[in-house]
């Protein structure tokens, strides 16, 4: 029989475990205390969250949840003390760890793994939820897209009556969630001038969520996100309450757009590139608005935002720079590739493919990524990571000469080789999967060029 332990004692024990793990150098110990607490007493997470005077807000999506949460934190953080899992530990244990660390926090702001979203929702009883998109991702771990979508529908259906919801109307599966909650805030992009000529190869939700007929797109923006309409039953993108119009992409430096909301419009300059970041900004703006932020606060918060951990980072390494963009699934990697090519196609890239659980053990997704625009400009590829050879094949069969490919499984040696091939003052493009990104940052940090993320997050 379990002996009841007071919450305070559990918290103290779990925090001590976090300090020990950090001292032992085990990667920041960001989830160790939460895992321990969850083991001691799964209900402790619920009670910790219930102590937050302003409750919790959750953000979930296949792509962009870390960036969206970081943008929302930038908007809200000036006024409120936040409990925010900024290092991307987004399972129940990560949320628990963040709650343990956040003494005196007023509002919980959590990015949540899409598969963990139902459980976190049930435990935290959030007052606000923002749902961004569903793309195919790690089928070996998450199962099929439809399975996640069904669980999201159930979780949204079980939200408290006074909880508020923001959804991306440009994603058919996600936009449909607004149907059951007429007060939901729907956001999306409305600028056919920056639409793609056709759906990308790996577009997922191409078929009507109600009748299965292929959608017709008046505009497709990122993957299957866009202005869709079913020719058979008429199901279409819901009306947008928060929209981005007049979008201009400025290479790798910025993207500007007009943020239109029910309470007015603002011109916004985001200091991160790409149309996908406009979606992240819209999601953050819609959520912050629901949490009471004024339009000026939202616009200035978005303009202050620089980059979320590992998603798009420029790191000076000696007299060269590293430009690191995370790749983790076809839709996200397509945007990373497009962003890089739009900023001037590089002739050299280091691409890293690992197959740990957090990367997805099934590496077949790299064949669904449209690497071809990158391949067109490459004179040399350094393929690295545990599945370096498989990645090399993706580029070889994508049309890159075998002689232009170097396979160097060791991340550290591949990084050094990339830097050696980069002229002084130049920038090296690095596209790693999740665990490869963590390892590469650690290597660069060990050389004193970037602070470990657990220090930044603190």
């Amino acid at each position, binding site marked *: 029989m379990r002996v009841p332990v007071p919450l305070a004692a559990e918290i103290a024990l779990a925090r001590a475990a976090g300090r020990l793990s950090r001292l032992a150098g085990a990667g920041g110990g960001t989830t160790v205390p939460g895992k321990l607490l969850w083991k001691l007493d799964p209900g402790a997470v619920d009670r910790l969250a219930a102590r937050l005077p302003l409750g919790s807000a959750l953000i979930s999506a296949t792509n962009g949840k870390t960036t969206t949460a970081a943008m929302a934190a930038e908007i809200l953080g000036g006024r409120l003390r936040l409990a925010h899992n900024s290092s991307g530990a987004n399972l129940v244990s990560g949320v628990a760890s963040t709650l343990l660390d956040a003494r005196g926090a007023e509002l919980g702001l959590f990015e949540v793994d899409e598969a963990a979203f139902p459980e976190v929702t049930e435990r935290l009883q959030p007052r606000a939820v923002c749902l961004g998109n569903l793309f195919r991702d790690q089928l070996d771990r998450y199962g*099929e897209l439809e399975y996640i979508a069904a669980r999201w529908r159930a979780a949204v259906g079980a939200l408290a009556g006074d909880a508020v919801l923001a959804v991306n109307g440009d994603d058919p599966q996600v936009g449909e969630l607004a149907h059951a909650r007429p007060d939901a805030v729907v956001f999306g992009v409305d600028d056919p001038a920056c639409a793609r000529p056709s759906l990308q190869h790996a577009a997922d939700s191409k078929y009507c969520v109600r009748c299965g007929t292929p959608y017709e797109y008046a505009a497709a923006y990122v993957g299957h996100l866009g202005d869709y309409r079913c020719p058979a039953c008429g199901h279409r993108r819901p009306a947008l309450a928060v929209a981005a119009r007049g979008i201009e992409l400025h290479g790798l430096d910025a993207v500007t757009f007009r943020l239109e909301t029910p309470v007015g419009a603002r011109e916004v300059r985001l200091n991160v590139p790409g149309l996908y970041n406009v979606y992240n900004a819209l999601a953050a703006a819609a959520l912050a608005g629901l949490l009471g932020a004024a339009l000026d606060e939202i616009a200035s918060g978005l303009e202050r935002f620089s980059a979320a951990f590992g998603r798009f980072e420029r790191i000076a390494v000696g007299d060269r720079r590293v430009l690191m963009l995370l790749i983790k699934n076809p839709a996200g990697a397509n945007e990373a590739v497009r962003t890089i090519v739009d900023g001037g196609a590089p002739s050299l890239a280091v691409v890293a493919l690992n197959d740990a659980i957090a990367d997805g*053990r099934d590496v077949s*997704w790299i064949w669904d990524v449209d690497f071809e625009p990158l391949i067109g400009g490459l004179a040399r590829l350094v393929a690295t990571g545990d*599945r370096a050879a498989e990645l090399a094949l993706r580029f070889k069969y994508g049309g890159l000469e075998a002689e232009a490919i170097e*396979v160097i499984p060791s991340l550290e040696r591949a990084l050094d080789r990339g830097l050696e091939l980069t002229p002084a003052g130049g920038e090296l493009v690095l596209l790693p999967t999740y665990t490869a990104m963590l390892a590469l940052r650690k290597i660069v940090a060990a050389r004193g060029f970037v602070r470990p993320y657990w220090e930044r997050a603190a």
Partner: protein
Amino acid sequence: MKIVVGHLYPDYLNIYADRGNIAVLARRAAWRGHELDVRTVSVAEPVRPGEYDLLYVGGGQDREQALVAEDLAAKAEGVRAAVAAGAALLAVCGGYQLLGRSYRDFHGVDLPGIGLFPLETVAGETRMIGDVLLECELEPGVRRTLAGFENHAGRTRLDPGAEPLGRVVAGFGNDGESGWEGCRVGRAVGTYLHGPLLPRNPWFADWLLAQALAHRLGEPPELTPLGDDLEQQAHEVSARRAQTRGGRR
């Protein structure tokens, strides 16, 4: 020589990077001076026997699979006649299931298959997910390995006497019990292995190309060997993965 490929439902069945398999066939054909002419055969388009040297059917999620199942029934005769006349065929995962006799889903609903492969599939409660290694003997006395990844809820049972694609060395295979994986009928092969299958198993890509050419030439030709160092490395890593963390029977 031109090799005509009929790619069935690429807009519905493409879940495990099936275009990787097509890219490998196209390049390896081109490096031998052949041209791969890939034609899409989607909903409401017939399979005309004789038109294709190779048919390809990929995998889909349950929803997409159900969307094409009905249409595939209308193509059944065309597919069976094409294979009977010597066309090669590769069907992966969902495509493999749909080309059997029947598929009973998790809710007990039967989807009729087209009966090309002598087998039946019944969905189980758990998915069989992981790296796989097979040993195959497509020609008597020539044993080679295939490395891939599987992710399926279906348990596929071959009819007595049916020829599997290979013996499971590591992983689950058709049903996690029998020790067999895939099915072969003449020049037609069905398998659960994706990854995709062909990049890291170049010998099998070449076997398929030779079978497709045999549809034209009568006999599978000898293909010029290619420099497959990268392919071999990828194969070895994948095979090792299966041996260390593939499913256990």
